[in-house]
């Protein structure tokens, strides 16, 4: 049985329950602030935010697969292709002309992140800067609701304020068999013009991919 037609990030975002972003933004800010008080070390706060994101990411992937109608895919390759064809193109404001061809698996990064950011946060993320062997790319966000009203004081210069996002990406990708390392390259809170997350593929374990349900 063919999978149900996949849906775009925009369509999903329009159809899910949504909340006032201000509440979300201030809640995240209050959490970061409390962590800084309780954990004292900025590095430790970075680590814990990443861990929280990871824990969220490994659960959000289910929501992503369910809502985007790709849950019945036979294997990872098919999932990647279904999402790539259907969702990425529809979710990005400017159509993508060149999907990188370095293994269909790695396209999933493309799909999951760009659709995911739209369907969860309501913002558009793009994927660029692929390296030659297709194991490293960047997720670029021009807008990010987490940082509305935020300014970093001098005492927090080492803080990766949005580190929860890198954790989410890492966790979600791990659930589709890709061990990655996700690091911040550019950060608007540090004066850059966009947010840029670098995603590096460390290991791919396709045999662990759980979606092998019967035809």
């Amino acid at each position, binding site marked *: 049985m063919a999978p149900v037609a996949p849906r775009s990030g925009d369509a999903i975002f329009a159809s899910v329950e949504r*909340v006032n972003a201000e509440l979300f933004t201030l*809640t995240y800010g209050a959490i970061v*602030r409390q962590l800084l008080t309780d954990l004292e070390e900025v590095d430790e706060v970075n680590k814990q935010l990443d861990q929280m994101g990871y824990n969220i990411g490994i659960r*959000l992937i289910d929501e992503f697969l369910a809502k985007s109608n790709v849950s019945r895919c036979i294997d990872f390759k098919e999932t990647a292709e279904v999402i790539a064809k259907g969702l990425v193109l529809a979710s990005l404001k400017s159509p993508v002309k060149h999907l990188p061809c370095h293994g269909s698996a790695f396209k999933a990064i493309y799909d999951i992140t760009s659709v995911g950011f739209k369907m969860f946060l*309501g913002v558009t993320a793009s994927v660029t800067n692929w390296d030659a062997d297709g194991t490293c790319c960047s997720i670029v966000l021009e807008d990010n609701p987490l940082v509305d009203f935020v300014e970093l004081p001098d005492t927090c210069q080492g803080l990766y304020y949005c580190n*929860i996002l890198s954790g989410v990406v890492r966790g979600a990708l791990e659930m589709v068999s890709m061990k990655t390392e996700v690091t911040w390259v550019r950060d608007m809170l540090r004066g850059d013009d966009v947010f840029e997350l670098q995603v590096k593929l460390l290991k791919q374990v396709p045999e662990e991919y759980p979606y092998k349900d019967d035809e």
Partner: protein
Amino acid sequence: MAREVSEICMDSVLAEMVASYCNRFYANKPDLAARRIEAIGYQVGHQLSERYTMERPRFSDHLEAIKFICKDFWSEIFKKQIDNLKTNHRGTFVLQDNKFRWLARMSVDPSADNGSNEDSSATVAESKAAQAMSMHLYFPCGIIRGALSNLGIPCAVSADMSNLPACSFVVRIKA
């Protein structure tokens, strides 16, 4: 139009925040975890009520302020108003939400159905589940306390979830 994010983002972040404080940072100190979670809520409530009252005249009395929490403030956060407000006219207010969103989709600890039929273990599991759930209520209690404190009303807020999915918040204004 006001900016929005998917509700699951909010739910995920809240659940993860509570889990981090209860299971990682203060694993064997539920009181400390509860206090931190409440403090986070307080901060959020304080800031939100500042924003939502910017264009308003000052409230003339406590009841006016509480009504603002029940109507406008609650609607901004939950897209619905508080369903029932009671007061003893001596500084205690009970705000009841008949279907409190942040508890509506919470599942009970599955270990409750695991094997054993003994009443005692079921009761233990149940009280554990209740405790875990109550951890989630410190955040909204903190929000209400923070919001009222920003309006110049110091108070204590507790929650009662004996009638799930309804949830009541008891506000005791400090004289």
